[in-house]
């Protein structure tokens, strides 16, 4: 398998010869350094812990401002209630459909384009690469894009979400760089055996590029999974809205109601909001530890060539 070994291992710690003694002030620094980093980690995790605590607390304790690290007045009724909300699961289903659909379209276009553009002898290659690079620095802007999608009749269809973001120039350039480093001998050998470009691409190149393909799938999948704004623009039909938009409407609705009805109203849905958020982030947190390294690799691959 052709790997992405070119990227450095950024978890590596620098070897310090044991014979060199640290000065007293550096020892102090190291203690401070570790302490600060522990605090940074704690602060980063705190919102998640607080969220889980609120999700399983009773509304009374939350309103009294007594829920921080641990649930108080243990409560599963909200979770149960939400679990029976059809609208919520419709949203989840839509998120999955849009993530799978968007990622598939994006991967087909990005992979084939990157492979063709990685062939240095290809006539017209420079012009097409230029076309891609321009899109990194300019985009049409909100209004022209909105008018285009509307004119194409994509409003209130899933196409409005999954088509317009199909080729990310960054991802494309990362893949192109990867294919450029693909061992040419393998492709030449296959060509001598009579394989066409298609055969080489599907039977030799793709199976050997699993690492970079996995990375790109994850980049796109996270983008579509987290996306909410295009849905707010184009999907007024609630049956098509992703769960992020469901959550956004919940957050906006509650704070909007609170402004009119005074402070207390804001908190009515605090427990419900926490449960909804929790159910939305759990899948990401569950897969995150296993896929994290692919993202790091992808970012660094991009920087090597970008």
């Amino acid at each position, binding site marked *: 398998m052709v790997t992405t070994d070119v990227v450095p291992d950024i978890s590596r710690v620098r070897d310090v010869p044991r014979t060199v003694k640290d000065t007293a002030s550096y020892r102090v*620094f190291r203690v401070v350094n570790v302490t600060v980093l522990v605090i940074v980690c704690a602060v*980063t995790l705190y919102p998640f812990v607080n969220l889980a605590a609120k999700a399983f607390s009773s509304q009374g304790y939350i309103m009294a401002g007594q829920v921080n690290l641990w649930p108080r007045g243990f409560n599963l009724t909200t979770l149960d209630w939400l679990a029976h909300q059809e609208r919520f699961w419709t949203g989840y289903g839509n998120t999955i459909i849009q993530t799978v659909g968007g990622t598939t379209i994006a991967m087909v276009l990005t992979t084939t384009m990157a492979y063709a553009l990685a062939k240095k002898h290809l006539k*017209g290659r420079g012009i097409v690469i230029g076309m891609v690079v321009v899109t990194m620095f300019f985009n049409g802007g909100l209004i022209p894009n909105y008018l285009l999608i509307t004119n194409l009749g994509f409003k209130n269809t899933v196409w409005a979400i999954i088509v317009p973001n199909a080729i990310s120039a960054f991802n494309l350039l990362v893949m192109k760089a990867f294919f450029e480093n693909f061992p040419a001998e393998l492709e030449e050998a296959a060509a001598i055996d009579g394989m066409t470009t298609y055969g080489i691409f599907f039977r030799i190149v793709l199976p050997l590029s699993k690492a970079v393909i996995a990375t790109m799938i994850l980049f796109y999948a996270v983008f579509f999974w987290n996306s909410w704004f295009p849905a707010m623009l184009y999907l007024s039909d609630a049956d098509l809205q992703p769960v992020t938009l469901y959550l956004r409407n919940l957050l906006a609705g509650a704070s909007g109601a609170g402004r009119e009805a005074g402070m207390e109203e804001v908190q009515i849905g605090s427990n419900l909001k926490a449960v909804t958020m929790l159910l939305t982030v759990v899948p990401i947190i569950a897969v*995150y530890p296993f896929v994290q390294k692919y993202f790091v690799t992808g970012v660094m691959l991009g920087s090597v060539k970008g």
Partner: protein
Amino acid sequence: MAPDTGTAEASPPTRGGELAADTPDAVLGGRSRPPQPLRDKDTWARALRKDWRLYTFLILPIIYLLIFRYTPMAGNVVAFRRFRPGSSMFGDEWVGLYYFQAFIQDPKFWEVFLNTVILGALTLIVVFPLPIVLALMLNELRSRRFKKFAQTITYLPHFMSMVIVAGFVFELTAVNGTINQVVSGLGNDPIPFMQKAEWFRQIYVSSEIWQTVGFGTILYLAALTTIDDQLYEAARIDGANRWQQTWHITLPGIRPTIVVLLILNIGTFMAVGFEKVLLLYNPLTYPTADVIATYLYRVGINSGSFSYAAAIGLFEAVIGLVLVLSANLIAKRTVGASLW
């Protein structure tokens, strides 16, 4: 073998013989006429015949780019033309700079312009240096396991949807949220942070820090691994302490990375986190929170003044472009590193 007429003259005699057998004209012609340029045979027809399968890979992507990237770019012409609903997306009556003048004279102009600049500047000044500091701190760790752990934790917020981040902000700043518990604990009245314009910038910047700083260390950490250990060894022999090593070896080692990322950040200076502001602000916080992008959104999408909104968007984009070009130029002149 597919001989090229242009190289025939330069070929050694033996190959010339081969060529003559294949294509006698080429050699004869080559003697009597100036050598034909390579592209005589390197035409599109030939490239297409040879690589047509590769070109089929490009058909869909190019159509895609033309429709979904380049058509909207051209669509900005609507900023110069009056748009009528149901008519062309490019507008139908030329009005020149009318909408740009309208924006500059708009009573909201200075508010949204200054809010954009202030939020952009705060992000650049406060948030940009932090990943460098964090990367340097991680770099001093001696336990690989703790370093990995800290990296895993601090990268996590990057993968959260903007809606989740906004949800966290609402929860933590709520009247009975954690921050207000601290405020009450200190003997003050709880503050409804999200309803107070004077708190919006602090909240925005804090959430940016939480969300972006960890993941922002990756490129710096990658740059740090490329610094040669021998430099540190030599510095130690010369008697440099750890601070001096950091100052004279580590920082110069990651300087190109810093410069490139700084230029990129300046490029997005005007496009301050539109989605985040849109989720966090409300009419009470408009005086500090309303930025060009959110104003444009309300004018265009909510009120349907597409031409006006497109002009606002173009105004913002042009400033962004000028900023990134000048930052690149300054970086090239002063530190010799640049994007292009």
